[in-house]
Each structure stands twice: as structure tokens, then as C-alpha cells.
């Protein structure tokens, strides 16, 4: 890229450029952000360091069929996420909200690939305060953990898969994972898996619908979070009153759609 000529920056112009969600160089996003040294050094003098037409807008989750998960994993996760957040009249269950789709797309992408994990050796078990010490990426971690869980379930539940168990039995097993009491073969503890899994389920349920979960913003509507708004100035001192704004995500705000 190198030097660009100096020019006056008009903020309205920049904002309108930035509004062009979905038309941007998403592939460039990682090189701009993931730490360092992904391209040649650039030198800027007498110019603002930005590139015309580039916005670092998020990429929407792919539609269509499963990207990473196999059918057994989909079965396990669909059953498990619906025990974490069951459907009821309050709001959608996790699978209905798209959480399994979210997990699949996340495991298929940068998160699943460990793009922001340090995974070099040597590896050894540490104390809980030292955190994640696995050599697995999150995608590998899920694959190994689910296989080990289904193996343990097969043994203790007379050959049944997790998804075919009654809800109270599923809950009991999830509680054993939460505490770490469910013993698994291999290097992953059930507690370590549950910790990552619970966090990812909450992420899928409550993140912006652009990532495949929180379908139609239903989880936000349930709790009363209005979503990706930018200006609440009007209601700052409207104490103890409902804020009458529509729930919106990053996509689908009428005002921002391109004409």
C-alpha cells in the first residue's frame, strides 16, 4: 500500500463508507488485527493511515449445511444445548435459537482453528489458575471430548447415545461434567469441556444474529436487550421506565440498508 497522499478527511464521508456492511474486504480483516507481522511494513507520513473503501465489518455466518460437525456431534450438541437453555414460553431453546449452527460455524472458522490460542509445546498439565493447557484447537477439543463423552455414556447407559436419554438423565450427566465427576478416557477432562461448552452456548444464544445463533434476536428480546443500537441519549435519565426501542442486530437495520 505504502504512502497515500494527504487529503482532508470528511467524517460524514467516512461514516458512509463504513456503513457499507457486507461489501468489504473481509479477508483482509485478519491481517489487520490478529497480532502482527502479516504483511510488509508500511510507512505513513503526512497521511492518515487508512485505505479507501476498506471497512473491517464482520463476516456473516455461512448459510446451508454443516461445515464442521458430523451427525453424531450434531445429535449430541442439539440435545445438550437444549438442556443448558431449554425451550419454554419465556423464550426459545438454544437449538431453536440456532446455537448448534453457531457452534458449527465457530468451530469451522478462526475460533475453532485456534487462531487466537497459543498451541505450541512443550505441553504439561498446570494448575487451574494457569488455564487452558491443551495442545488441541477448540475444534479438535470438541471432537475428542464429544467422542469421549459418548463413549462414557455408552458404557453407563447401556449402549444409548446422549441424545436418546431422558432429560433428567441428560441433566445428571451434564452436572457430572460441570463438576468433573464424569471420567473420560483421553487427555480432556469433562470439566474442561463443560467450561468451554457453557461459554460457547451463551455466546451463541446472546451474540449478534449475524453469527448464526440468537435467531431473529429472540434471546435479546427475551431478556430485554435492544441490541446493536448506537444512541440512547434520549433515555439516559428516564429512570425506572421501559425504553421503547426495537431490537436490532448488525444486519437488518432499515436505516442502514443500502438504497
Amino acid at each position: 500500500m505504502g504512502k497515500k497522499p494527504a487529503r482532508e478527511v470528511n467524517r460524514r464521508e467516512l461514516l458512509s463508507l463504513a456503513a457499507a456492511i457486507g461489501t468489504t474486504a473481509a479477508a483482509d480483516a485478519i491481517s489487520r488485527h490478529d497480532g502482527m507481522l502479516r504483511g510488509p511494513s508500511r510507512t505513513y507520513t503526512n497521511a492518515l493511515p487508512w485505505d479507501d473503501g476498506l471497512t473491517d465489518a464482520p463476516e456473516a455466518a455461512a448459510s446451508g449445511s454443516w461445515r464442521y460437525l458430523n451427525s453424531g456431534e450434531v445429535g449430541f450438541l442439539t440435545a445438550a444445548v437444549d438442556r443448558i437453555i431449554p425451550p419454554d414460553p419465556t423464550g426459545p431453546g438454544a437449538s431453536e435459537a440456532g446455537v448448534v449452527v453457531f457452534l458449527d460455524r465457530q468451530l469451522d472458522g478462526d475460533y475453532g482453528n485456534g487462531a487466537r490460542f497459543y498451541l505450541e509445546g512443550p505441553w504439561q498439565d498446570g494448575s487451574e489458575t494457569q488455564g487452558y493447557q491443551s495442545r488441541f484447537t477448540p475444534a479438535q477439543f470438541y471432537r475428542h471430548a464429544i467422542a469421549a463423552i459418548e463413549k462414557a455414556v455408552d458404557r453407563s447407559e447401556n449402549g444409548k447415545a446422549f441424545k436418546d436419554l431422558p432429560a433428567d438423565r441428560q441433566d445428571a450427566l451434564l452436572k457430572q461434567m460441570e463438576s468433573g465427576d464424569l471420567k473420560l478416557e483421553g487427555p480432556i477432562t469433562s470439566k474442561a469441556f463443560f467450561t468451554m461448552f457453557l461459554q460457547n452456548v451463551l455466546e451463541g444464544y446472546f451474540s449478534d444474529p449475524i453469527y448464526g445463533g440468537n435467531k431473529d434476536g429472540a434471546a435479546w428480546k427475551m431478556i430485554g436487550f435492544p441490541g446493536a443500537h448506537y444512541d440512547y441519549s434520549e433515555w439516559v435519565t428516564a429512570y425506572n421506565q421501559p425504553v421503547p426501542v426495537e431490537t436490532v442486530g448488525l444486519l437488518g437495520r432499515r436505516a442502514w440498508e443500502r438504497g
Partner: protein
Amino acid sequence: MARTMPKVDVVLVGFGWTGAILAQQLCDVGLTVLALERAAARTTPVDWATTFDQDELRYMWRHHLFQNVRYSTLTFRNNVNQTALPMRHLGSFLPGTGVGGAGIHWNAQIWRWLESDFKLKSHNEQRYGKQATAALTLQDMPLSYKDLEPYYDMFDRICGTSGQAGNLKGAKQSGGNPFEAPRSAPYPTPPLPMTFGPKLFEQAAASMGLHPFPHPAGNLSQAYTNPLGMQMGKCTFCGFCEKFGCGNYSKASPQTTLIPYILTKPNFELRTEAEVLKVERTPDGKHATGVTYIDAAGTEFFQPAEIVALTAYQLHNVHLMLVSGIGQPYDPATGQGTVGKNYCYQTMSSVDLFFDDKLLNPFIGAGALASVIDDYNGDNFDHSGLGFIGGAYIAGMVTGARPIEMTRVPDGVPKWGLEWKHAGTKYFLRNMSLSVHGSSYAQAGNYLSLDPTYKDQFGRPMLRMTFDFPPNDLAMTKYCTDRAAEIGKTMGATHVHPKARKGPYDITHYQTTHNVGGTMMGESPADSVANKYSQSWDVANLFVTGAGLYPQNPGYNPTGTLAALAFLTADAIKSRYVKAPGAPLVTA
């Protein structure tokens, strides 16, 4: 071997807050300044526009603006008897990377230290006796509040800080912090309005005889033009400051307050994707000749400079000192050495509040939107018989309500299942958390060093952190968290759950990005790495900025003080150093 680049007067290693401050100050007097930044350039309209910056998953949980541990991490252990292991995923703290550094995703909570924080050791020994500090390795700063005040004021004017002064030139001001040291001028802009939660805190604290005031904020209450002509907008309370960039030009950051100005200077250059590996010196080791940096292709460059300034994040500044072999590394077994000594953190705790009868709408927020009391901070209260020194500010703070992080439920409710779903739904708009922002005092076993096993991507030893909370700080957090719970009860919360910080220190759960110490400033080379002008005792043309300069961490967010110290450093370089280059500004 390395290709030699044209020489500059000043090379800056890292281009966040302190790099931008030095660049602005030194370019203005005509020095040629080159900033080397390891990651990419970032700007408001491209990187965190209002059209997509309210995205909790991407920024908070997927670390989009943070340092990527895949390429840059450290090892950690709680004490010297453990083997340190890599931090394989970010958790407890979230350093930045790229132009603007952590100055992009901070909350913009802008504080000054108390006068007594500058002479912490002598002050406490005088008031409570030598035994009060015996288990700690506290040190006084080599300068006073009065020395630093003009530079605190400069930073406030650069940021446009919103707040209510409590002490103007010694005259107490109603509505401000009665404990603060004298300010030479009021805040540039009035305080932010309080949302409901902070208002309830303010009323409760006042009714208890405490002294609430609006938290000083770099999220601006009104439009502002700073002395460099940089324009900022009024905050719109979107609730995405902390861990996010501000698309609205309302949050003070290097991008909003300094960088566009600096980039108009013909004597300034910014070079991105250029990672500094080492400070190079003359054979006698007493003079820095420049730095070696590397690009993505693995090509090394030697950048000569008259002055080298380490302006990276505290952890990286300490690492660069150690891998460059400058100064004596601290050894906890002998107490000898200063580089890496007195690593401190911030002792954070909270009180979760749930209101059955009040709608708080906590999604309306800003990074520093809070009513706060300083009654239990520093030495603002009598510690006689309490068994600890130090303290915390307590804030009724609502920075926003990001639902992955903040769908809180009362204690006793499971973390998942229908019961969780119902409680989370009931309380999402009816909960807040009081923030108890505690001091972190140094003890002999907490330090930074080079790891004997793990190497970074360039083959250098990783930085190794050895840290646990000192008993003094655990006693402090218990006491201050209990005081916060009393306020929570007075606020009328249905459920009040104090969460005092407990040991051992856990690197996996987010607490705060307030890592300090390791390149502390002091009175002499025997007790410190740098003098009061942030100048290395060992290499007179090397300056080190940032929170690494702190011998311990008072109960305040560090940015205000480290920015003021950077302005003071710039002033010393401009007014004194350039007249006798290469000479120490303080005689050892």
C-alpha cells in the same frame, strides 16, 4: 546482516498512548520521530465504525482488537515453586496491539493519584509504623503530585475529560471528590449525566455520609475540541466502550486526540508491521545506538536513533529490557536487581445487586459512567487496627449490559437450565455490579523475568510472570467489598452479593488490564530502573514509559498517571536532554 535504515532523532517502540504523547510533543519542537508499531494501522471509520462496533462476540470474546497470544504471550505461575506455563488464551488481562494499542478498547476512566500515593512507603510508615509495610516491597516515587500536576492537566485537556473537580487550587468544590489533590483547573467538560443505577448509588452513598461524585470520564458529556484542534463528539451511551472501539469519536483515544494531528507533521513517520526485537547498544553498553526490528518476511532492519523510547505496553517494555540485557534482572532469592521487580496488578472485586422493583436499563452506559466514592481508597481512611494498608474506590458503574458477559443471576441459582433462564430473564434489566477497584502492593515474590523453557516466535525467551495476591491486598479487598455491600443494601437491592477477590490469582478470568511495575522509577539505580524522567539509569539515551514505572499500583486506573508521566518525560527531553544529549538528567 540487518539492513540499516536512515537515522532519526527519536525512535518510539510501540504507538499507543505514551508513544503518541511523545511523538506529538517531540515533533512539535522539530525532532525527527519514527514510531515502530508491531501490528497494523487502525482508524475509527475503518475499524470500529458505529455501524458495526456494538458486537460483543467479536470484540470481547474473540479478542478482535487485543493482542493475539498465538504470536505474543507470556508464561505464568503463582509462585516460584511452580513451573510457569504459557497463557494459551487471553483471560485476566487484555493488552492491545496495533496503532492506538489498548488506548482504543479502554473504558477511558481518567484518574490522578492521591498525594500520599506518591510517597506510599514513607507515608504509611510514618502513620502506622514500619511493621505496616514490612511484608511488602513498597517504594516512594521520586517525584510528588505537585511535580506531576501540570501534566495531569495537560492530559485532561487533550482528552477533554468530563468530570466535577473536588479541589481547585486547594479550595474544596461541592459535588467533586473531596479527597483529591489540588487541581490547577476544572475538568474541560462537565460530568456525564447519571443513569438510574449510578443515581441510586449516589443517593445511597450520600445518605450514609459518604462522598459520591461523578467518575472522571474520557467518554465526553459534550462536543469538545482539544488544544491540538482534534474534535470529539458527545457520548451517545451505546454501552460499548470497554473492549470496544468508539465509532462516535466520543471516547478519548490516541486516534481521537493525537494521531491525526501527529500525522500532519513532516518530521514524523509511522511504520507499522515492524516488530522491535532488541535495543542495540555501543560495546560498553552505556549508549543505545538504535533498535533492531523485523518484518513479516523475516527481514531484520537496524534503525539507528539518537534517543530510543520504549513506549509499548508495560509487559513488552519489561520484556525488551530483559532480552536486550539492560539493567540487572531482579532475583527474588537475593532481592538483588531491579528489572522485573515489583510487578503489581489491580485487586478488583465487585458486589452484584439485583432489584425486584426497579428497572435499571443497564444497556445504557459508557465506559466511565459511574457515581463513585473515594472514602475507602488509599489512605483516605484510618487503617489503624485493620491489618492492611491501601484501599479501593467503590463505583456504582454501568458501562453497558453486554448479554454474554452480563446476564447475571443471584447466588444459589444454577448456571444453566430453566431456573437459570428464568432468573437471567427476570434480572437482565434489573441488575448492576458495584466495582471495587483496589490497590495492588508489591511483595518480594511477585516479579517478571525471562522464561527458561518457552520461546517466542522470534526465538527470544518469553516473559514469565510470577504473581499472587499479597495477604495485605486480600485483607484490603475483603474490607472494601464489605463497605460496598453496605451501600448496595442501602440502595434497596433485593439481593446483595459481595464478591471479594480471593486467591490464588487466576489468569483465566477477566479482571482488568492494569499490569504495572517491572521498570519502576526511583531515587537511585539501586532501587529502580529509571529516574523520575523515565530515563534509564544504565543507558542515558533510553527512556521507558508506561505503568511499568509504578513501584506499586494505587487504587486507581493507571492511564491518567502514565500519560502525565509521558508528558513530563517529553518536557524533560525537550527542555533539558537535547541541550546535553547522552547525559543523565539525574546524577546517580
